Structures are given as C-alpha cells and as structure tokens.
C-alpha cells in the first residue's frame, strides 16, 4: 500500500514541478515570452543604443499608415501578436531589438519565437490551425504556395500601397506578390554578388581588385603562376541543403550574360530550364570550378567541405591557400577565431561579364507573411514596412534594408556601408532563383543537379540540366 502512495506522490510532485518550470516550445529552446521585464533585460543594450523609438520620429502617430497611427495612439494596448521566424541566438537579439521599440510605443504584447527547424514547425502549425500572426519566410516560392492555399492575408487589400510603392522598388513588391496581390512584405536583404579576398596578401603581392570577368580569370592564372596555390575556395556541403552554392553561381552569372528578362522567364519556366543561355552561364562557371588547379581540393572538396569551412584555407598561417571566395555577407560568422571582416578579408563586387548588362546584383531576403487579420497585427506589419523599424538592426550590422527611404548614413561601418552602396549602385536586382522556383526544383532537383555535376567534374552538363528540366512539376 505504501508503495502505491509513494508512486502517486512522485507523480503528483512531478506534475507540479513540470507546470512551474519554464515552458519550452517548438523545435528549439529559443522561445521568448515577452512580459515587459523579459524584453527589458535581454534587449536593454539595444534599446539604449537606438536613438529612435517608433513613437519619437513619428511625433504623435503621424505615419502614413492608419493602423500604426492608431497603435501609437494606444488604441490596441494590451492586445497580443505572435511572431515566428528562423532567427535564433545572435540574430534573435537583432530581431528583438526591432520589435521592442514597437512594444514600448504601442503597448501591444509581442511574443517572438525563434525556431531552429523552421520549415517543419511552421508547416505543422499552419496545417494544425495554429499559425502565428506574422511569420518570416526566406523563399518567395513558399510564400506563394501559402498564398495559393488561401492561408495568407493579402496585404495589398488594406495597407497604404502608395507609401509602399514609394518606399520599395517594384522588384521587391513583385517578389512579395502572388497573382496581383501583395502577400509578403520584404524586410531584410542579403547580397550574394560579392567575392571575399585576403586584404594583406593582395597588398603584399601588389594585385589590383578585378573589375571585369576577364580580369578575374587573368588574376586567377597569375596567382597560380606566382604562388602555385589554388586561387579559388569553393564548397557546397550543407547536409540536405548541399548544392545551393552552385545555384547561386549559375544565377549570378546568368544575370551577367543575359538580359534580366531572360532570368525572369527562366524562373517562371517560360523558357526551359536548360535554355542555351543557361548552358552558356554554366560554361563560364566551368571556367572557374572545373579548371584544373583552380579550386582548393578540387571537385572532391566542393562536394565534401562544409560551406562554413570554405574560406578557412584563406587564413592559413603560411599565406592564403585560396584567394577568392564568392559568398554572401554572413560568412564572417564562420571564419576562424580572431579574423575580422574588412581587416583580414574584404570583398569586391562580383565583376560583370558582358558590359551591356551593367552591374546586376543577385540577392535573397526575408519577407513577412500575415496569417491572421486583426487591427494590432496590421499595425505591426505597417511598422515593419517603415524605415525606422529596421534601424536598430542596421546599426547592429549584418542587415541591408530593401526600403529605399533608409538613409545610407545609418549603415555605419564595413561591411554594411559597402553592401548598401552595392545595392544602391545596382542596375538590376534579382532574387535567388532557387528560392523562387517551386520547391521540388529549387530545393530539390536543382541542388541535386549541382552535386551530380560536380561529382562528374563538370562533364555531362547538358544531361544534368536536362534532368532538372524534366523534374519541373506539371502544374
């Protein structure tokens, strides 16, 4: 009898302890429930750094957005909005620095949840009827799928589109649109058309930063001749996402060898995936990837080395073992300890190939999607559309805003100011194709094709691209 009581007591106690412990949700332990004190302690530093809060610059709620004005007026105090995104740890602090000023100015309670296994958890929540009010998404293709399924609220139905048209160039509005309505609000831009190089070694050897493709290839040859090292660091391994680096190269080159309309037709499948223009881009790419002695570790390394480790040989103590690494601006987070962006390695713009196509920029970015329609949710979306919203993150670095009303001097130091300058200088901007195409291709067969192509050391180009063309879903 006493044993039973013991078991019952233990069970009861564990229930109580479980209830009193902090609840953790979702795929990671990055939940942030936002009671006022929580937000304060984690983001006090950020809040103090920003010189603007949402209220200040808009002196008494005079923004061009009606719901935001009402919110600033205190109309929605006490309401709750849930936000999901894939930003965790360091980046989570960044997004919180954006959301906290809004909370303080409007009294709306924002619950932000950063999820590690974002795709899976978001799908489960949406299918289970438990969608967050606002969710971040990196792939416009996914956003369009949600929109087609009727899960999203069309922003263009209620938001001040005149202001949006003023603040964002048409490309960004189109990227967030599905069948004429805008469902996604662009928030964060990511530039890919940059090549990192070792600053000191360049100076020592007296090399000049290449400004055209031919100069880039010539410089690569010169490095081989002068040092015997492989001039390029390239690698793709990323678990089930292996292959996206290759897709970035194809897209960036295609923008430089064909008109932007060709790129758009390619993404929309109005021309076949293996159109001769695309195969021509693949030719240029082979010049670098598959020339003997160009890539560190050869094609084996491309498939076997983790993307975060690609640039490590550049910092080797005996001098760079590879000299060029084309990768987006977040790569410094993966560099070895003690290396600094701008000091040990800086970047130059991925050079144009054919002069008539100017300076195209390939990028990616994050949009906000809206699942539930309530006035306070509208207010938050409008807030995120303003230039002020992103300012705390801009000042923290690693953030480029697609909002053209953001003054360039907010960008402070390297690398942000240079990135912003490239963005401003671009003749064309296009979004990463593999994120925009249907998922079966963009994250399925296109990635696989890159892997197979590399494994074959650049042979069978036509077959590889044909396979992708064949895999395009019928609808």
């Amino acid at each position, binding site marked *: 009898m006493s044993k039973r009581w013991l078991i019952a007591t233990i069970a009861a106690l564990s229930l*109580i302890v479980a209830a009193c412990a902090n609840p953790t949700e979702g795929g990671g332990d990055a939940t942030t429930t936002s009671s006022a004190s929580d937000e304060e302690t984690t983001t006090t530093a950020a809040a103090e750094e920003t010189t603007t809060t949402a209220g200040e610059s808009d002196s008494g709620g005079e923004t061009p957005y009606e719901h935001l004005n009402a919110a600033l007026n205190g109309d929605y105090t006490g309401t709750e909005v849930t936000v999901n995104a894939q930003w965790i740890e360091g980046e989570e602090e960044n997004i919180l620095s954006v959301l906290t000023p809004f909370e303080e100015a409007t009294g709306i309670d924002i619950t932000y949840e950063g999820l590690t296994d974002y795709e899976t958890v978001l799908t489960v929540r949406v299918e289970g009827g438990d969608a967050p009010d606002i969710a971040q998404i990196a792939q416009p293709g996914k956003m369009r799928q949600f929109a087609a399924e009727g899960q999203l609220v069309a922003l263009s139905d209620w938001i001040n589109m005149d202001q949006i048209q003023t603040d964002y160039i048409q490309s960004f509005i189109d990227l967030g649109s599905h069948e004429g309505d805008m469902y996604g609000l662009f928030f964060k831009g990511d530039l890919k058309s940059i090549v990192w190089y070792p600053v000191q070694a360049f100076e020592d050897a007296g090399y000049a930063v290449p400004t055209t493709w031919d100069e880039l290839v010539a410089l690569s040859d010169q490095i081989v001749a002068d040092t015997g090292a492989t001039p390029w660091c390239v690698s793709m391994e990323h*678990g089930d996402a292996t292959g996206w680096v290759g897709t970035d190269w194809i897209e960036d080159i295609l923008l430089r060898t064909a008109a932007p309309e060709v790129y758009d037709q390619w993404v929309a499948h109005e021309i076949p995936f293996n159109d001769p223009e695309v195969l021509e881009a693949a030719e240029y790419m082979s010049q670098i990837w598959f020339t003997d002695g160009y890539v560190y570790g050869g094609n084996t390394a491309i498939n076997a080395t983790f993307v975060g480790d690609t640039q490590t040989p550049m910092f080797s103590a005996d001098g760079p073992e590879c000299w060029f690494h084309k990768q987006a601006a977040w790569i410094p987070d993966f560099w070895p300890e003690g290396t600094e962006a701008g000091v040990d390695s800086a970047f130059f713009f991925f050079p144009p190939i054919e002069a008539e196509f100017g300076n195209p920029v390939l990028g990616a970015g994050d949009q906000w999607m809206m699942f539930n329609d309530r006035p306070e949710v509208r207010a938050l979306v409008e807030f995120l559309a303003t230039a002020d919203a992103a300012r705390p993150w801009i000042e923290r670095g690693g953030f480029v805003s697609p909002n053209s009303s953001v003054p360039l001097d907010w960008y402070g130091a390297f690398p942000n100011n240079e990135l912003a300058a490239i963005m401003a200088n671009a003749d064309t901007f296009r979004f990463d194709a593999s994120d925009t195409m249907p998922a079966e291709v963009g994250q399925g067969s296109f*990635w696989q094709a890159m892997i197979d192509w590399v494994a074959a050391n650049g042979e069978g180009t036509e077959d590889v691209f044909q396979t992708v063309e064949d895999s395009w879903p019928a609808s």
Partner: protein
Amino acid sequence: MSKDQPGSSHERGLSRRTLVWGLAFLLALTLLWVGVVILLDPEAITRMLVSFYRLTGLEGQAAAIDERGLQEGFTRLITAVFALIVGVGGIWVLFTTGNALIEASPSPIRRHLRPWLFILPAMIFLGVYLVFPLVETIRLSLLEDGGFAENYSFVFTDPAMQVAMRNNALWLIIGTTGSVVIGLLFAALVDRVKREAFAKTFIFLPLAISAVGASVIWRFVYVWRPEGSEQIGLLNAVWTGIGNEPVPFLQTMPWNNFFLILIMIWIQTGFAMVVLSAALKGVPTELVEAARIDGASERQLFFRVVLPSIRGAIITVTTTIFIVILKVFDIVFVMTGGRFDTEVIANRMFSEMFRFRNFGKASALAVVLLIVVIPIMVVNIRNMRRQGVGT
C-alpha cells in the same frame, strides 16, 4: 449484499440504484469535460480565482488581480494543482461511478459492459492518435496532389524514388543481416568472457544514444579534408597515416550507403546481442551434452543444435531490427540529407511533406512503408504465438 436473493432489486433489471449511479456517472463525465475546458483556457484560471475572491469577500485581492494580472509562477502552480484534481481525481471518480453503475446493472449487461468501461479510454486515445491518422494518410494518398495514379506512380517510377527503393533494400538486407549475425557472434563469444556484464555494456551502449547522437559521432569519424591538410576525421587520419590519400567516405557513391549502414549496425548489434545471449543461455545443457556425446564437432553443435533451438529469438530479433531499419530517417537526414544517392523512403517522405508540401505524395510513401511492414508483423506475431506469448 442481497445480490443473489430472489426477488431482490437486482433481478428486477433497471432499478433505482442503476438510475442513481447512471446519473452519477454522467455527472462525473460532465465535470471532467468542464474541467478540461477550463484548463485549456489560459484566462479561465484567473477568472476563477477572481470570482472566488469576490465570493469570499476578498475584494481587494480580486481588484489586484484585475489590474496587474497574476504572477506567472503562481498561476502555474494553481493550474497544476487544478489539473491534478481534474485529471487524477476526475478519472478516479469516473471509474468509481462507472464501476458502481455496472455493479448496479442487471447481470448479463454487467458481464459485457465491465471490460468496455476500462478499455474504452485507451481505445479512444488509440483511435484518435493511431487509427484516425492511418485512415487520413490513406485518404490523402488517394485524393491529394493528382490522386492515386499520380502519387503511386511517383513512388514506383520516379528516378529519385527508385534510388531510394534500392537504398532501402540495401539497408534492410545488409543492416538486418549484419546486426543479427554480429550480435549472435558477440552473444556466443561473450558467454565465455570472465567479466561478461562489463563486455555486454560496451556493446549495448550505442543503443542508449539517439540515432542523431550516433550520427554526429560518426560524422567525426568520416570527415574528409583535402590532401595535405590536417585530417580531423578518425578514419581518414588512420588511412592517411599509413600513406594513402584521404577518402571522402560520405560523398563516394555508392559506397557511402555502406558507411551509413555501418552506423545502424553499430547501434542495433547491442540489442541483438542481448536478446540472443539470453536465448543462448536458455539452451538446455543436456541437449548440448547429448550432442557432444554423440560426437558432434563444435561447429556442428552450434549450427545444428544450438541455433535451431533459439530460432524463436532469432526471428524476434530479426523482425524487430527489420522494422527499425525500414523506418530509418535520422541517420540519413543528419549525415547526408539524402544527397549523394543515399536517399531513403522515410527521408523523402519528410522532404515531400515539409519542404515541397506535397501531402499526397508524402502520404503515398507512408502507405507504401505500411504495406511493406505488414508481412513482417505477421511473421512476428506468428512467432510470438508459437513461443506461447500472448493468445
């Protein structure tokens, strides 16, 4: 109790007692339902407390809660206690009244109803969480994404799927055989070791870690670095140490499959060994001695006498490991993500479901796995019946 006396209320069928207990049972059910509804609503506890305070005249407290809200920890404590009362107490009351109701019912009804009272909750849960998803999956595979024809023809004819099928076959054959054979070998050998428990622990240990944990460990075994750089992978360090070029194990097709299967064998061998070791110990010594007297060699002894007598255990182990390997996902997902020709069905199901949002195709894959596992389950159950376990 006057149960069996003639003319008692008992034999008059539905009696007052039945009605009373029937009502009590329904009341318990209603209260339980209300309790669950309250627990699901986060505001309800607060409102309950406020009304409680108001009722008992503690106006000040009630006002304070209205203004500032309850402190998180305190609310959770109250919720936990309330949950205990509703959950444990409610179920207890439900079963007690239910049982009393059945006691108060006429005899034939009693006999039939009693077992149902106790298994009904479990059946409801199983129904909701097992049967309904099963039916729904089959339905999705037949109706979504272009229907039966497109989904199932995708499963069997798509080139990527054919690679996955081939890989699953490899996993099943090599993984199962490897685990059972090596497990049997260890079981036979460990029998004669002095510190048997010690040795067994080491072999069994991998089973205790998750498949993901095992995959991370083996990732560091298989890591590749270009020739000339420092090899941080165990295998490559040894391989280059004896003067060879480093080998990218996970990217070399098709051998990478075998390196992945090795991980599964590493995990499952412990299970096979433990079960087979117990079975080996159960072989009657008289049998072995009689065979020895009859002049059997050690090999003949093992293959002709011992193995047949542990046949049941071998089948159990084989079918269990078979089912585990059929579902393999973690190892492939973590190590290669299905790239480099290592795709397996479960991994593809995940991609179709969450990455491509093709619910029809994902469901079709799940149904195919289900169909493949049915014959194995039949063998397993038959085997268990033969061994006298269960009815």
